[in-house]
């Protein structure tokens, strides 16, 4: 079952609304990186785990310097107040709890705040995969958000009862932003807070494995 919903840029935009002035933020590869397009004018410090605080916009043309890239290997720029540091310092601040908000993509999330994002066993690589900085980012996150499509390309649920892929972290996800809904992970379970205009609670439940708790303040996603 597939519903029409927000494009990826708009998932990023909705997630960006939860990031506040003064926040130190790290954005994972994929939809999370698109959030950087929606924070102009806000006083937000983007950290790149490669070893940079206050990462500026992408660089083009003559502004490209091969010694200045973000953690996705894209050329970027610096800003007034940017600092560079080495990798153990970078992961010290990540693991040490200095990032206010971490946003990651995911292959699967469950209702207890576990998520899987680093390894797809279908690739046949016998356990190895790209962990990158994801587990460190989760370990230190004050608020961990997931942005992703609600279902897989072929319509399978990505919000599941039990992860079938290897977990990146357990019990850490606070909010999930998809093309169809905004959900919050609570001790009672997954709370449905916002739905894509025109969809019903039943629609969202039909593509979501865990039993949803409907927020008393349920509303349509506003951008």
């Amino acid at each position, binding site marked *: 079952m597939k519903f029409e919903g927000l494009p990826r840029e708009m998932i990023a935009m909705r997630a960006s609304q939860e990031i506040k002035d003064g926040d130190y933020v790290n954005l994972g*590869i994929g939809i999370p990186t698109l959030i950087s397009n929606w924070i102009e004018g806000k006083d937000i410090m983007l950290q*790149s*785990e*490669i*070893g*940079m605080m206050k990462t500026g916009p992408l660089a083009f043309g003559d502004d*490209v*310097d*091969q*010694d*200045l*890239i*973000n*953690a996705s*290997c*894209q*050329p970027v720029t*610096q800003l007034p107040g940017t600092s*560079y*540091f*080495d*990798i*153990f310092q*970078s*992961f010290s601040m*990540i*693991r040490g709890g200095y990032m206010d908000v971490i946003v990651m993509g995911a292959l699967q999330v469950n209702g207890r705040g*576990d998520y899987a994002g680093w390894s*797809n066993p*279908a*690739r*046949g*690589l*016998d*356990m*190895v*995969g*790209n*962990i*990158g*900085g*994801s*587990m*460190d980012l989760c*370990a*230190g996150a004050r608020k961990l958000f997931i942005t992703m499509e609600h279902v897989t390309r072929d319509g399978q649920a990505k919000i599941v009862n039990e992860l079938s892929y*290897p*977990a*990146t*972290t*357990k*019990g850490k996800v606070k909010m999930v932003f998809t093309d169809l809904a905004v959900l919050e992970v609570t001790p009672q379970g997954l709370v449905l807070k916002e739905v894509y205009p025109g969809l019903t609670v039943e629609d969202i439940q039909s593509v979501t494995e865990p039993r949803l708790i409907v927020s008393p303040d349920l509303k349509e996603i506003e951008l």
Partner: protein
Amino acid sequence: MDKVWSSVEEAIADVEDGATIAVPGFFAAGVPRVLLRALIAKGVKGITLACGCGPLLGASEELAQLVKNKQLRKVIDSYGLYRSASKGMADPFEQAVRAGEIELEVYPMGTLAERYRAAGAGIPAFYTPTGAGSIVEESVITNIPENRRKKETKVIDGEKYVLEYALKTDFAFIHAYSGDREGNLRYKMTARNFNHVMATAGKVTIAEVENLAVPGELAPDDIHTPGVYVQRVVKVPRLSFALTID
């Protein structure tokens, strides 16, 4: 103490078959490519490359050559595979990993950073929250099943932590923007990444530098890696390369 060597070939002359070499770089930035090319030319076999975040994806030509020459026994990394499965399927390195011809040992990136740092700092082991709740806490992640040694965990103040060990290497290949004759180094912007911690982790640390300075030229408050960690310095040209991992 003058640590300058006249060529990368001489500087790596004592790298033998079976050596473990720390290779810094975060994808394309800060990779010691001139030293890697010298390693390819030298042709030593059975090499373990201890990486941090995909320098061999950034230096993909060098990786292809190392695989083709069958020089690699093992790679340690946090992000050593192409992101896209289809590209990975066609990649000779990934094929060798899938066939078990090259071992790929995987750790979280921050854990690797700390393992190199610990090696340089005389800290044999440390507890980290990273990986708790994942298979990383259970054993070393590797494609070679018999090498999956169990990891220890400990509960401290109600939270579970994983015990990880220092990672010391025979050699470290370093890429610096500037270095003086006594081995003091400076890196440029995000090319710093793993270079400093790996400089401290190598028993013999060899730095390729784009700019060679005399002692006193680098401001003492602004030296990123004190020369005590660096045994050899070689001046190299600044290469141009594509910024891509795809």
